[in-house]
């Protein structure tokens, strides 16, 4: 078997030149590992943002007072009172694409339990708020529609509030706390949700009936915003349009007139994030591409020098009866062995580096098969090509010319 002999020759050449082999491999290893790690980081953060958004309720729709014109003066949307409870009822009754809906009013203040106190926010909502925001109860129960109707002073608290007002052994259920001097009886504790993408602590909240918050805390009768969930993520844009037309009718806005409210879905947020993460991934791919290129140049350099340096060897092999095909195959096998081994080491190094980054830096990562395949293929082919090309030239030489080479 001739090919077996050539394999033997190639193997021999590789182990005879460990340093050269190692340096050539290093280019492949670094290139492949860099690409895999970078793409894993890019992909990981994209995914975590997406998860975060769907954790917030990917079919969520938010209605807020808009920048309407009042006598030529634009009003600060935060100060606007254009959303009324009647709007909430209208959407709730007329919309066919919305499953849950809740008005939302909120205020900041100090929560106090005996000697403990903690600055936090109170959200006035309906029980459906849990479904809309995908929140779960860890303990106790949510307040009921009846409690909303009767403006009961009951509250459900987030984990952060619980930790800051109660000791770990203490059961907060049934306890009384004060928020801005108003007493609330705690009836439930939310499951932890962690920080959102903007670094906001989603557990630092108190939920209470919106009626209670409106009357007791804020002293208002309008709503600051309305949150709802569409029947599905796909139907969200339709639900947005439907809500628009319901509210325009409700607010008597004529065609051509500007709306005094805004409706937007998570979809828009998602597409915004997608474009950002696409830019980031493109950037990482560019960096990884440069790493690959440098690796490739390294391979090319060493392979080229190695073939030059071995021109006399090639001459000798031709002189004792090696055919130019034999020489070519030998160098090709060498290049394949080096590139493939380097590629495999690079893949494992890349995976290891990714896992270490995930473990020690706590960055979200996600290794994709595509990144492994692409980087491995590109590096392997660079190595093989640059191993093959100079060998191709050398094997075409006259044996006597190759032997005289110095």
């Amino acid at each position, binding site marked *: 078997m001739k090919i077996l002999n050539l394999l*033997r020759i190639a193997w*021999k050449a590789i182990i005879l030149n460990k340093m050269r082999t190692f340096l050539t491999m290093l280019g492949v290893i670094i290139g492949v590992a860099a690409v895999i790690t970078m793409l894993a980081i890019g992909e990981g953060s994209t995914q975590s943002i997406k998860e975060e958004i769907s954790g917030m309720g990917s079919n969520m729709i938010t209605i807020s007072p808009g920048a309407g014109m009042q006598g030529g003066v634009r009003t600060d949307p935060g100060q606007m009172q254009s959303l009324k409870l009647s709007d909430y009822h209208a959407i709730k009754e007329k919309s066919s694409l919305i499953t849950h809906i809740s008005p939302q009013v909120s205020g900041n203040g100090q929560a106090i339990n005996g000697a403990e106190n903690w600055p936090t926010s109170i959200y006035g909502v309906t029980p459906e708020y849990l479904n809309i925001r995908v929140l779960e109860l860890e303990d106790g129960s949510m307040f009921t529609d009846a409690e909303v109707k009767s403006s009961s002073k009951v509250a459900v608290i987030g984990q952060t509030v619980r930790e800051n007002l109660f000791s770990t052994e203490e059961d907060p259920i049934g306890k009384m706390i004060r928020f801005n001097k108003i007493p609330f009886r705690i009836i439930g504790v939310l499951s932890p949700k962690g920080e959102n993408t903007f670094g906001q602590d989603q557990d630092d909240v108190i939920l209470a009936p919106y009626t209670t918050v409106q009357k007791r805390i804020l002293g208002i009768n309008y709503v600051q915003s309305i949150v709802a969930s569409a029947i599905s993520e796909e139907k969200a844009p339709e639900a947005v349009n439907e809500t628009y037309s319901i509210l325009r009718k409700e607010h008597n806005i004529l065609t051509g007139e500007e709306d005094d409210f805004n409706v937007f879905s998570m979809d828009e947020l998602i597409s915004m994030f997608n474009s950002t993460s696409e830019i980031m991934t493109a950037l990482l791919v560019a960096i990884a591409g440069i790493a690959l290129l440098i690796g490739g140049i390294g391979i090319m350099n060493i392979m080229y020098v190695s073939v030059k340096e071995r021109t006399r060897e090639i001459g000798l092999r031709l*002189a*004792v*009866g*090696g*055919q*130019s095909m034999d020489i070519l195959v030998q160098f090709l096998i060498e290049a394949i062995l080096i590139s493939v081994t380097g590629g495999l080491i690079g893949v494992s190094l890349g995976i290891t580096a990714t896992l270490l980054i995930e473990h020690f830096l706590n960055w979200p990562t996600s290794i994709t098969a595509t990144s492994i395949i692409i980087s491995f293929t590109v590096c392997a082919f660079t190595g093989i090509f640059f191993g093959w090309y100079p060998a191709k030239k050398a094997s075409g030489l006259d*044996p006597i010319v190759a*032997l005289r080479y110095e």
Partner: protein
Amino acid sequence: MGQETVEALRDVSFSIEEGEFVTIMGSSGSGKSTLLNILGCLDQPTSGSYEIDGLKVKDQKPNGLAKIRNEKIGFIFQSYNLLPRTSAVENVELPLLYNSAISKDIRRKRAIDALVHVGLEDRLHHTPAQLSGGQQQRVAIARSLVNDPVVILADEATGNLDTRTSYEIMALFQKLNISGKTIVFVTHEQDIANFSARTIELKDGNIIRNVQNHDIMLAAEELESLPKENI
């Protein structure tokens, strides 16, 4: 980068019979190596023809030439040309690696036999760097023998060696010749030429002498007459 065409050989015509031991002589630059390279199918003449073992070399494609070199020729280079960091046996095995008809075991056996033949049985696994010049030359000779060629072509095989070692090498060639090998030997030293049966002398690419040697010296005897080494 041929600015000027060099005619290394001109009007050269001769034949060598099976079993002959021929020396090619001539001063430096007279075309000896060029001639030997043509005989070894490493180089091709611009015009004229060359036949080896009944084969017209001119008609051969590169692969055909490689096959002739592999099976019919044993070439000993002026500068040994051994693979560095590679053991003597593996160096000798080299031509057989390119002959798929020969199995691994036979290859190894023939390489060892060839090394035994040149008296290197105790240096099988030494690399060229661990061998003396004469020993390296013998490895090169063993390599030229291993494929059982129809002709052995040696280019200044004794050029870099002292007299004693040169004679040892010549004794080896004579032994090979007696056992039936055809040998063409290039040298520029007259005393080395005396060990062969025929001398072809070149001058500026022309044959100026092609004579039978009637007074062949025996290298083994000459070796005896050399002053003994002090050990």
